[in-house]
């Protein structure tokens, strides 16, 4: 008799714990999906905040490690998408950016399934190209093109959502100064 009562009590406990677990999981999933409050994008990085590190492979199997890059030079992270016409209009300026500023440039394509030949055709030599929705998600980028400048301590120096190449130049001039 006693054993039966204990077993029933344990079953009730397990049921209650399962309910608590499911409720907590539901709330966790819900909070993870919140992207904005009153028009403010949630989860974006503030200037001066240390950005998450990543190690990804390029489509031609070259390893790109953010830490190794920013330890030698500042890093420009440029978030794009295969189907984004504005991104394609900005990418030809990247070769000038590399020529004028001492930077590592990492182009991150948030689309890893579609045809990216239009993007790769515009990439100058010397840039690192990744196809990684996970990096984009980690950096809370929801709109492309978006540029982030990372300093040599791995902190966010500046960032901007871009409408054209002028936006990219404005970001670089503001942070790195004008180069003739």
């Amino acid at each position, binding site marked *: 008799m006693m*054993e039966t009562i*204990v*077993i029933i009590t*344990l*079953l009730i*406990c*397990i049921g209650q*714990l*399962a309910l*608590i*677990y499911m409720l*907590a*999981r539901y*709330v*966790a999933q819900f*909070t*993870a999906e*919140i992207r904005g*409050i009153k028009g*403010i994008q*949630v*989860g974006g990085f503030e200037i001066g905040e240390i950005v*998450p*590190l*990543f*190690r990804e492979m390029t489509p031609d199997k070259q390893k790109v490690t953010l*830490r190794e890059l920013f330890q030698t030079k500042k890093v420009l992270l440029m978030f794009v998408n295969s189907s984004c016409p504005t991104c394609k209009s900005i990418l030809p300026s990247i070769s000038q950016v590399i020529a004028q500023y001492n930077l590592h440039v990492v182009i991150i394509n948030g689309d890893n399934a579609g045809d990216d030949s239009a993007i790769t055709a515009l990439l100058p030599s010397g840039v690192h190209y990744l196809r990684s929705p996970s990096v984009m998600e980690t950096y809370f980028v929801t709109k492309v093109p978006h540029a982030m400048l990372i300093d040599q301590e791995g902190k966010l120096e500046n960032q901007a959502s871009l409408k054209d190449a002028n936006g990219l130049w404005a970001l670089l001039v503001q942070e790195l100064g004008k180069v003739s």
Partner: protein
Amino acid sequence: MFAGLAFLLSMLFSLMFVSTAWDKVSHADKHIQSIRAYQLTPEGLIRPLFALFTVWEIGVCLSLPVLGMTPYHTLAVCGLLGIYTMAITINLIRGHRDISCGCGGIMEGNNRLHWGLVLRNTLLIVAAISTYLLQLESVTALPLLSKVMLGLTSVALVMVYAAYQKINEVQARMSRLRKWMV
């Protein structure tokens, strides 16, 4: 007393591997990516290794409640945890912290490697050996009803841990959201 404790610990190990193996089966791509991120195995070995670890875990979780912590189970549990711990340690020494531990199930924590994982796995290895030694010490066999009660107790304990982890996750997300709302 020893027999009861040994059975409870065996059940806890079994449930731990049920949750990790289930996570590996249901999120295979994520776990293959985790193994790749450790950068310890050649590309061609990643999928066979993933399959081996998953089958290893399934084998342990299914046989532990039936056979108890035999010497083979002790070796299997310690070997598996030892391999995981070694992989984590090597990456921590290399300075690669920004990868998921790939532990899966209730053992999955935040998305970074830290020395706490090494400590946790070492304690689990000690617990597995202790379970085996406790089982050796036990002289009487447990009645079926006691096994049922201990089994349910271990399920309740695992559920408490899983709920605690989820609530912690919610708390971390809530505090981040609150920071943005102020």
